[in-house]
């Protein structure tokens, strides 16, 4: 599934975007949570029975209390303690955030997890116990359960009913990686490539950022070197750069072009002339 971004407006007033978690990771987290809670319960009881320390009646009491606890309360407590993350969500690296840009409130966490009872547990237990009634009623019930399960797939923000009531979103954990600035020259040497305004007038932001992506990976294989030289020759032709560029200089040519193009576009933008792509002059 395609990733979607959602803008959140924190109190500082600068919108920041989060990636909406994919349906697969939502399902994975839920599956892991069920596995962890029920598996943990099973292991605990096997251990207790094996150790034989607790009387059977106490064991039964504990069992009924825990079987209740690992349904809705487990999700409420873990999301409260870990700020919107259950164990399963921690493993698949997703989390719950408040859609209004404020902090996640206990109310929101409780509301979204209470709805889990009809959205997750009831369909799951009915399907697993195999007591789905036959006939029209069973068919209607089954269809309705499937419809509830599919709600997150049919809205843009992948909200389940609980998310709608609570006003929450489930997003991927943001990962911050700072890559080096390509516009910083590595050596102090004077540049040999000089581009004037007519050269830099052709492209816009989109082309610049595409070039940035190419420059992030220096070519290693012969094929990659050919691709880079193709890019360099195309740019040279498009911007009408008449000077000779040696094949060994293609990489430097591109780097230098990136730097000067960026400087040019950024200063145009400061003057109110934002150029989104190479079609900027045609739009006027």
């Amino acid at each position: 599934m395609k990733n979607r971004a959602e803008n959140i407006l924190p109190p500082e007033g600068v919108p920041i975007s989060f990636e909406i978690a994919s349906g697969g990771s939502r399902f994975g987290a839920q599956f892991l949570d069920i596995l962890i809670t029920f598996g943990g319960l099973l292991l605990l009881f096997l251990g207790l029975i094996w150790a034989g320390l607790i009387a059977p009646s106490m064991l039964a009491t504990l069992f009924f209390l825990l079987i209740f606890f690992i349904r809705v309360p487990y999700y409420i407590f873990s999301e409260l303690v870990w700020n919107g993350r259950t164990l399963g969500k921690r493993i698949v690296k997703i989390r719950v955030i408040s859609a209004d840009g404020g902090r996640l409130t206990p109310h929101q966490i409780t509301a979204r997890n209470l709805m889990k009872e009809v959205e997750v547990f009831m369909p799951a237990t009915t399907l697993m116990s195999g007591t789905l009634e036959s006939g029209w009623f069973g068919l209607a019930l089954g269809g309705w359960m499937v419809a509830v399960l599919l709600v997150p797939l049919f809205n843009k923000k992948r909200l389940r009913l609980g998310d709608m009531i609570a006003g929450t979103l489930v997003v991927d954990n943001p990962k911050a990686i700072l890559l080096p600035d390509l516009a910083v020259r590595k050596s102090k040497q004077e540049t040999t490539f000089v581009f004037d305004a007519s050269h830099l007038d052709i492209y816009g932001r989109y082309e610049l950022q595409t070039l940035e992506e190419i420059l992030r990976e220096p070519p290693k294989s012969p094929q990659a070197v050919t691709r880079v030289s193709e890019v360099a020759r195309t740019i040279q032709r498009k911007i009408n750069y008449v000077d000779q560029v040696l094949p060994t200089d293609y990489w430097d040519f591109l780097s230098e072009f990136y730097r000067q193009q960026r400087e040019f576009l950024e200063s145009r933008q400061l003057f109110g002339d934002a150029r989104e792509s190479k079609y900027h002059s045609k739009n006027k």
Partner: protein
Amino acid sequence: MTIRPIQNTDLIRSSRFRAEREDGWKKLETLLSWAERSGVAALRYEQVHELASLYRQAMNSLSVARSISMDKALLAYLEALCARAYLVVYAPQEGIRGAVRRLFSEGIPRAVRRSSLPLLIGFLAMVLGAVVGYVLYFQDPGWYFTFVPPEMSDGRAPGASTEYLRATLFDDGGRNKETLGVFASFLFSHNTGIAIFIFALGIFVTLPSFVLTFYNGLLLGAFFALYAEAGLATELFGWLSIHGVTELSAICIACAGGAQLGLAVLLPGNHTRRQALRIAGHDAVKLIILAGLMLIVAAIIEGFLRQLVQDTSVRLAIGWGVGGLWLLWLVFAGRYQNKSGETKTPDYEAQA
């Protein structure tokens, strides 16, 4: 963060912008990874102070970078950094204990007082069901078999002898004190599951909640009629009251919570349905928490006291006494007035 002036005039404007601020971002990143690993509580006072100011500066940088920089990598980095910092800075500040205390001292009673219509629907469903069940039984006892599933009736069916029926009310079922605990915990687990279920179904325009509660009422009515026919009405009333006042009210309240959601979907007023759901959710969630709490108490009473107390008048006194306590709490708690005499509305409710 002190902005380090960069001497190198060779850099273009946005690179200079980045070089001047990069140290601050890196520092923020280190603080964030500590806070994410072991919580903000693990940071020292100065570190928290620094975190807050670095967060605001990173936000500022992001806002500026969006208008002056075309470096995609930088924008993506700042965006993710700010998102991470936002999640740490705007984490819930209230401990679980504080939230729970506020919920019980004012949240729940106020929510109950605000939701009279849904509560009416909830109790009406139960009462209507009971009346219909009672009346139908006297028209034709055969209805009893329609309403009450055989595994539930356990021999308590029309035609059973009065002695047998009396024995079901005043018999501890051979349970000793150890198994009472099991019974109570089973009741709690089972009933709370049902209550949450009734509540959550309410989102489908109230109807399923109403039907389930109505059905509970039907059972109750038919059951009552069975005993009334045998001349055991008072005894049954005592047997039911001791835990039923709390338990049945809890079911009605869970239904009311569901009704609140259903009403929001059905009659959203000036809001969109999603907004209306979100607003109704505030009180509805408090109602279901209340129902859960009442079911815990009911399970303890039903599991232990009903078996241990065999006298009808004591049973009545305990049942309705506990009911009166609930009512006192819900009607009077969380009503405080400030000096000017107006009822004070806390900030969080104004926001909600």
